[in-house]
């Protein structure tokens, strides 16, 4: 048998003898697509005091979640910053940085009967929302917001982070998405993209 034949026959054997590396896992691989396991809403009132309300899904599969109720004071105006984490990384990864870097593909939406704002026209709202930041195209992002606790009461608010990468080199994140959501009553099928985060919070305004 010629050498070339031997090599040809032997090659797959050699290749296949690579051991199964049980702990190969994610190391060294270009795996990052920003897995999210936790969301923090940091409410800073006019006195500079910050309250953090969060949702956490530390295993990433919904099997062990915790949610804080949001408690606010009527008449108070809050600067609200969002923080998004991946707790499965060691140390914990701050995904907020990636969202900010690709702001043109992301937007937070605040909907539900507790909210009156660009994405929700609830008449029984207990808080009013306005965006306080924008991306490079001048469109809202929602990492920084202003919430005013307008009326005492209790209701639900949905926080949604929508990821809208371009499709066919066309922008999916365009002007007026929040308004379109408001007009549809919070039906996300009227805008493109998919959910990175969608979580319901109970909002109580005392």
């Amino acid at each position: 048998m010629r050498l070339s034949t031997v090599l040809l026959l032997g090659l797959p054997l050699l290749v296949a003898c690579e051991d199964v590396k049980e702990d190969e896992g994610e190391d060294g691989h270009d795996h990052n697509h920003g897995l999210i396991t936790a969301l923090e809403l940091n409410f800073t009132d006019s006195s500079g005091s910050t309250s953090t309300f969060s949702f956490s899904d530390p295993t990433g599969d919904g099997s062990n979640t915790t949610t804080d109720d949001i408690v606010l004071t009527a008449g108070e105006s809050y600067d609200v910053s969002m923080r998004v984490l991946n707790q499965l990384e060691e140390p914990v990864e701050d995904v907020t940085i990636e969202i900010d870097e690709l702001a043109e593909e992301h937007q937070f939406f605040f909907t539900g009967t507790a909210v009156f704002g660009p994405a929700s026209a609830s008449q029984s709202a207990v808080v009013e929302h306005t965006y306080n930041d924008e991306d490079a195209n001048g469109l809202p992002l929602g990492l920084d917001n202003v919430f005013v606790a307008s009326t005492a009461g209790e209701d639900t608010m949905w926080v949604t982070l929508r990821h809208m990468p371009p499709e066919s080199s066309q922008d999916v994140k365009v002007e007026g998405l929040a308004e379109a959501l408001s007009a549809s009553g919070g039906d996300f099928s009227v805008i493109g993209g998919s959910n990175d985060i969608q979580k319901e919070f109970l909002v109580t305004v005392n």
Partner: protein
Amino acid sequence: MDVWSAITCARRDRLSQGIVVGALVASCGLVGDARAADRAPVLTVQQAPEYPADAPKGATGTVAVRVTVDSQGTVTDAVVLDGPPVFHAESLRIAYRLRFQPAKTDGVAVVGTQVVQFEFADPHVSQPAQSPSEIIVRAEREDGHDSHARTVLSEEDLERSAGRTLAESVAVVPGVQLARTSGTSAKPIIRGYGERRLLVLHDGVRHESQKWGPDHAPEIDTFSAGTITVVKGPAGARFGPDALGGVLLIEPPPMRTAPGTGGKAVILGATNGRRAYTALRLDTVSARRPSVTYRLEGSFNDSATLSAPDYPLGNTAAREWNAGGAVEWRKPNATLRLTYHHFDRNAGIFYGISRSTPAEFKAQYEAGVPVTADLWTVDRVVDRPSQNVSHDRVTLHADFAMPSGWSWQAIYAYQHNHRLEYAQVRAWYVTGAQYDFTLRTHSLDVKAEGPRVVFGKRRFDPGIGMQGSFQENVYRGYSLIPNHRSFMGGAFAHGRFIGEHGAVTVASRLDQLYRVAFIQEEEFERHIARETLKHSDCPNYENGEACPRNLTAGTISVGGLWHTVPDLLDLKLDLSRASRFPNADELYLIGAAPSLPVFAIGDPGLGVETTWGLSPTAELFTSLVHAQLSGFANRVQDYIYFAPEMTASGEPAFNVTIAGAWPEYGVRPIDANFVGADGFVELGPEALFGLRAQGAMVRATEVSSGEHLVGIPPDQASAIAFSRPPTPDAIDAWALGIEVQRIATQSRVLDSADILEAPEGATLLNAELTVDASMGDLSYRFAVQGSNLLNTAYREYTSLLRYYADQPGRDIRVRLSTDF
């Protein structure tokens, strides 16, 4: 003397009619026996020839082969004297495997010659009376004696689906349907059994690849196939694990044996997706070494974005290329063949597929048009999400005949399947894949066909075999499917009694699987939290747990065929059992992927799934009518049912993650019944005008609840009118066919059992015109095919796309091909 020389001698025989045979043999360089023997060689050991799968349908004939038998009773030379060329190669192959009592002169064994008639017969036709002076070895189409309903797609049939997937190529067979993906891929479904429950044997080797995602289709280039045989129904005893719904036997075209170069070329263009496809195969045999054949083949398929009738299907562009080759050495008693094939496919995953909350899902569906459809353009860009899959395959086939009359075949194969999935990412610097799976499989198949035992007009063909494989899966990126390593082994025996009025086949098989999955601590804790694994199930290893499984499956089958009315009607009855071992994803997966847009949860406790099947088949043959009707009733024990999870109160279960509430899909073992029928009737199969009607139906229910299972294809039927008008002088033949295809609504599945209700059925119009022409020694075929000519917008129940968008619309394909 090699095969080519033998055929050369045969030609000389024919050209030199009237010349003494012995002189001709001598002129070919053979050792002739000049003395007249007292007694000619007497056949003692037969081999069962195989009816060539590439022979034209209905072809029959007898090949006369003169064999030279040495004083030990071994055939040392074989020469075709007469007969249809399509049967020459198989006749010569078997001729060398016959065993004789040697010729004798004065009681002493001497070299002698004998003429053997190889009869390639239609099994439905009565056997002619056998002259006592003739030695006749019969070969019949395998489907003539198989108790399964089976269909052989010839190279000509496959050419009609050039550039399409394996699943699309076999979907012309009644009872075979498609599970389309988001783009140009598709998986086959046979009698309601999806890809996991089908065995694909490619050139005798189990095709091994990732099968857990809807977008994972068999990585096989149909251009490399000479025939594809579709065996319907459980066939585990004969073919091995996974053959619950049926088997796809993919065989390469026969290697060229005549000196020179020949091959096949195909070029195709299609309107939908502006597809371009080209394929070329070259076989060459040098005159200096006529016992060696070299083959090179390859294909290239480039598709832009597909379009539904009303909008492009964004990000469905795909690029696929295949390359391969083979070298075959032939000796009188042995054949050795080395092959290599590479498959490479880079394809976008439809933009519209995304995990959505139930409310959004439903709203999208009711809107009819994907929300960003107006952004999508027809282009050749493959964007995220996407998949890049390669499959390398090396095989070494050894086929040799023993003096005892046993014919052995051994196949070693190595398959390297590499799947990369690119998810949407949130950082510009991330360019690689998020999911990366390598599946490596070594396998060795050894089987032996025993010498044919002849009792008058009855005969018995025995066979035994064994199979062993070693497989390992390695992931990089996210650990959706854990690393695992498995050993599988099996042994089988089968036999077929063939009589004047029919045949009976019995087979049995035993398989064993040992698999260890290496589950990382984090993933293992998820199973602990779900109480699907206990710490005692899996010993620790360095970074997690090693979970072993040891599974056994035994199968048996009995089938019979009765030529009820000779030359007119055959009845078949098959009683078979088949099993499959649960796949690693069905056991351990928790999560989703770009090609798996639901939250799927495995069950490590799953056991062996087993189907018991009963299938009667009737086949009618006349010059005016050809029909086949086959029914089936299968009971599946521990059917691994992948379906939406339900709560105790019967409501869909949701997995609440930070990204929303997603419908959970889980696997659970159930007992299920599959019953149904499929078949066709063809009027005037050879007439100027003809009509063919075919259809299939399946009813699959859970035994305990009686509820219909999710994902089972709806009823389908089609009617095809065709015409073969008289041909003008300029062409050899032409034909025109028009098909009306009806896909019914899957109305039996409860709406509450699925995320969305089943889509409405559809009626499609397809047509095809083919023209055969010759130019010199070259023959050409030109075809124009149109599918969904009315550009009907519809959604297909078994397609992943149906949740998000319409199926692709009108497509016109123009094809030119030639054999040379």
